[in-house]
């Protein structure tokens, strides 16, 4: 059914999606929080930048990572750091690529909470951080669940960037989507079918889950 290469690709894909979501939770929470509460005129600019990957072809991102962030690019020349052919390079790329899927649900959730519950917490002498941890984040739980699930699923489907800068190294940068592509190239349609069907069912279940959660736990704003 699935050979070792397919299984290692599955494992790399799951690790990549998991790591990317973790990075995005750490980076995305402050961004979403800032977007929900700032009155700065930069807000729209940041919102637009966060939403870019929705409209930008992943190959554009891949191209920049290959050329602009390669050894001959400015960063490569200065630091010697390059992103191509490494698992962490893919994580960095995926974090950009899946950013809107994590930040936007969080932003919406933080916005829905509003300032009132936080002000109540502050008046009871909670520090801003304490207020965030004990009041805001539990109230934004739904946003977190949506963000985690969508970010994970979106990264699972990544193709363009990986194809451009992955180098197809088994166990490091070879992922499910490129494996399906390879199977089709060499006429192994049976394996392509198995992997494609698995991805299709998984994606559908994920989205179904998100919509069920959204119905069951509407945000309560007192």
């Amino acid at each position, binding site marked *: 059914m699935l050979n070792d290469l397919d299984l290692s690709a599955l494992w790399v894909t799951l690790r990549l999606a998991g790591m990317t979501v973790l990075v995005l939770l750490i980076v995305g929470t402050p961004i979403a929080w800032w977007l929900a509460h700032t009155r700065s005129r930069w807000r729209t600019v940041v919102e637009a930048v966060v939403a870019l990957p929705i409209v930008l072809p992943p190959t554009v991102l891949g191209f920049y990572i290959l050329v602009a962030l390669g050894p001959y690019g400015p960063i490569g020349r200065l630091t010697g750091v390059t992103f191509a052919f490494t698992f962490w390079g893919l994580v960095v790329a995926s974090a950009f690529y899946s950013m809107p899927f994590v930040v936007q649900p969080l932003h919406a959730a933080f916005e829905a909470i509003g300032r009132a519950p936080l002000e109540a917490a502050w008046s009871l002498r909670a520090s801003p951080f304490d207020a965030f941890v004990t009041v805001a984040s539990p109230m934004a739980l739904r946003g977190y669940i949506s963000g985690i699930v969508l970010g994970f699923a979106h990264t699972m489907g990544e193709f363009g960037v990986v194809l451009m800068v992955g180098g197809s190294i088994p166990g490091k940068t070879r992922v499910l989507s490129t494996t399906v592509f*390879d199977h089709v*190239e060499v006429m192994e349609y049976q394996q392509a079918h198995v992997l494609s069907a698995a991805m299709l069912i998984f994606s559908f279940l994920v989205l179904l889950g998100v919509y069920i959660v959204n119905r069951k736990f509407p945000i309560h704003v007192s």
Partner: protein
Amino acid sequence: MRKHLLIVCLSAVVTVFLAAHGASAGQVQVAVAANFVPAFKDIAAEFEKASGHSVQTTSGSSGKFYAQIKNGAPFEVFFSADDERPKLLEDEGLGVKGTRFTYAIGRLVLWSQDASLVTGEETLKAGKFKHLAIANPKTAPYGTAAMQALTKLGLWDGLQSKLVMGENLGQTSGFLESGNAELGFLALSQVMDDKLKGKGSRWDVPAHLHEPIKQDAVLLTTGEKNPAAKALLEFIQNEKGRAIIERFGYALK
């Protein structure tokens, strides 16, 4: 008023359709394996000048083209990087019987952007590099040849951890030109392209280290009635076409 608008719309649609149809006279849709693209660009330009037909080129990997052609892609001529897929297409009734021929025999090179890095097989043996790029041996004939050469030199297993694979030769040269991989195996034809000619360092891999890379072309049944497709195949086989192919470092049959 409504009826009037409908007539205007319909006639617009018909006009567009006819225009599109009229434009396709003397046009040929060609699928070209990535390694042959540099040479084919020159051939297409010469052919267009000589015949007045226009050529629409799509470049990619032979494996992908094979899958697309099987599923009804509108290509009329297929220049493959191997001799297996055109034969399969002919056997499956998608290629016109008797039109298949070897248009070129490919040569493999080890190439680096760095003018002093590649000196010969000793460069591979010394292993003073982080990444060695090859085209995917499963999907690209030049990748298969690179694998055979490395195996014959007894280096395949030792270099596993340094191998990075491009989906096809075009992508593999992207890894090399951007400097992300220090050296790698390409087709000689790519290094003969104006963009890379005389740049970097190279080692022409001896032909006995791998099976000959026989590259076949075939007229597809979609192009059977297209005079432009037939004319293109004739042009490739006459002296002008053959001279261009040789200039790009291919051997001829």
